[in-house]
């Protein structure tokens, strides 16, 4: 999932208090799971803004709404559209994709980011999320026993480990596991360690961000011009 963290309250208050009527728009998918921008977090921010406005003597109206996903057109239903239209500004608590998609759909509306999108990750224990994928466009995790060196090695080394590994930890921080220590351990357990003797050639990073913004097209799924929703 996409993992995010809510922005600092003072930052959000400064944005909200510039307007008369603000909609807090939550997203019910990734940011709900990582407790950053779902219905619950929308309600908390709503209460916080109301309390702070009272304390600081400001007057602005806050409304709330949460949709299933802010990265899909179909979930911006009539109710969402009506609430967005009625607000002077929207604080989107969705990831960076959601806020942009919302802005694209409602071009005349000021849409602020309510969260910082951090990474693609997994829930490693309740309340803890870790990065697992860098979205590089060419998955090589299977070559390294299911552990991705692109996302999990601080240097994204293809032939590790480097000299900065100590007792299974990375020199960047002793809270970061050395991905290559994990890879070696797991390949030993799987009995495939000898495969690491093969040097991995430099990656072609054009599939990643180095090739510019990416686009995926499934021609078989595309609708004909005449049958599109808006046509």
């Amino acid at each position: 999932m996409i993992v995010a963290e809510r922005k600092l309250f003072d930052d959000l208050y400064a944005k909200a208090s510039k307007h008369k009527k603000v909609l807090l728009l939550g997203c019910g998918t990734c940011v709900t799971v990582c407790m950053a921008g779902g219905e619950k977090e929308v309600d908390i921010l709503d209460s916080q803004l109301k309390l702070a406005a009272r304390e600081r003597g400001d007057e602005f109206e806050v409304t709330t709404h949460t949709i299933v996903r802010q990265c899909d057109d179909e979930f911006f239903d009539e109710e969402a559209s009506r609430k967005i239209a009625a607000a002077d500004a929207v604080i989107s608590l969705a990831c960076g994709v959601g806020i942009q998609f919302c802005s694209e759909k409602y071009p005349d509306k000021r849409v602020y980011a309510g969260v910082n999108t951090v990474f693609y990750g997994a829930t490693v224990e309740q309340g803890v999320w870790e990065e697992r994928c860098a979205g590089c466009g060419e998955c090589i995790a299977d070559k390294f026993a299911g552990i991705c060196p692109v996302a999990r090695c601080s240097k994204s080394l293809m032939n590790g480990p480097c000299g900065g590994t100590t007792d299974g930890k990375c020199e960047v921080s002793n809270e970061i596991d050395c991905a290559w220590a994990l890879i070696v351990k797991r390949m030993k357990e799987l009995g495939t360690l000898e495969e690491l003797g093969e040097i991995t050639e430099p990656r072609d990073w054009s599939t990643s961000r180095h090739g510019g913004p990416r686009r995926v097209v499934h021609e078989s799924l595309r609708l004909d011009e005449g049958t599109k929703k808006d046509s």
Partner: protein
Amino acid sequence: MENEPTIIAFCCHYCAFTAADLAGTMRKQYPANIRIVRIPCTGKVDENMVLQAFVEGADGVMVAGCEIGSCHFIQGNVRALKRVAHAKKLLAETGVNADRLEFYHVAASQGPLFATTSAEFTERIKQLNAGGEAAAIATSAEDSTGEGS
């Protein structure tokens, strides 16, 4: 000027609520400012329940649950302690004094403790309403925060 704060007390059915009932049975008076909301366990309390109480006009919120190790649902009070600590931080961000929120441990048999805790907390909120600083409360759960988790 009259200073009669509204205080919401989220009380666990298995301990603090029973203690409040016992306080009444024992003729121990506690301030009429306290408005009790019975909950099945303090583990039911989340941050927004507390914040919402303040939005709706509460001057103070106390969450009263079982002592560590005696939660009917095993870990509910430990979870509540963490959530109350988080809610204090969220409150402070808005400019509301975080001392207006407190967690207390009150066992079902401690009717008198419920009465004195309620009175002390009410006094704290009155002081805050009058623009003063919060006095430390000896029975506060702060000392036990973080233990048993």
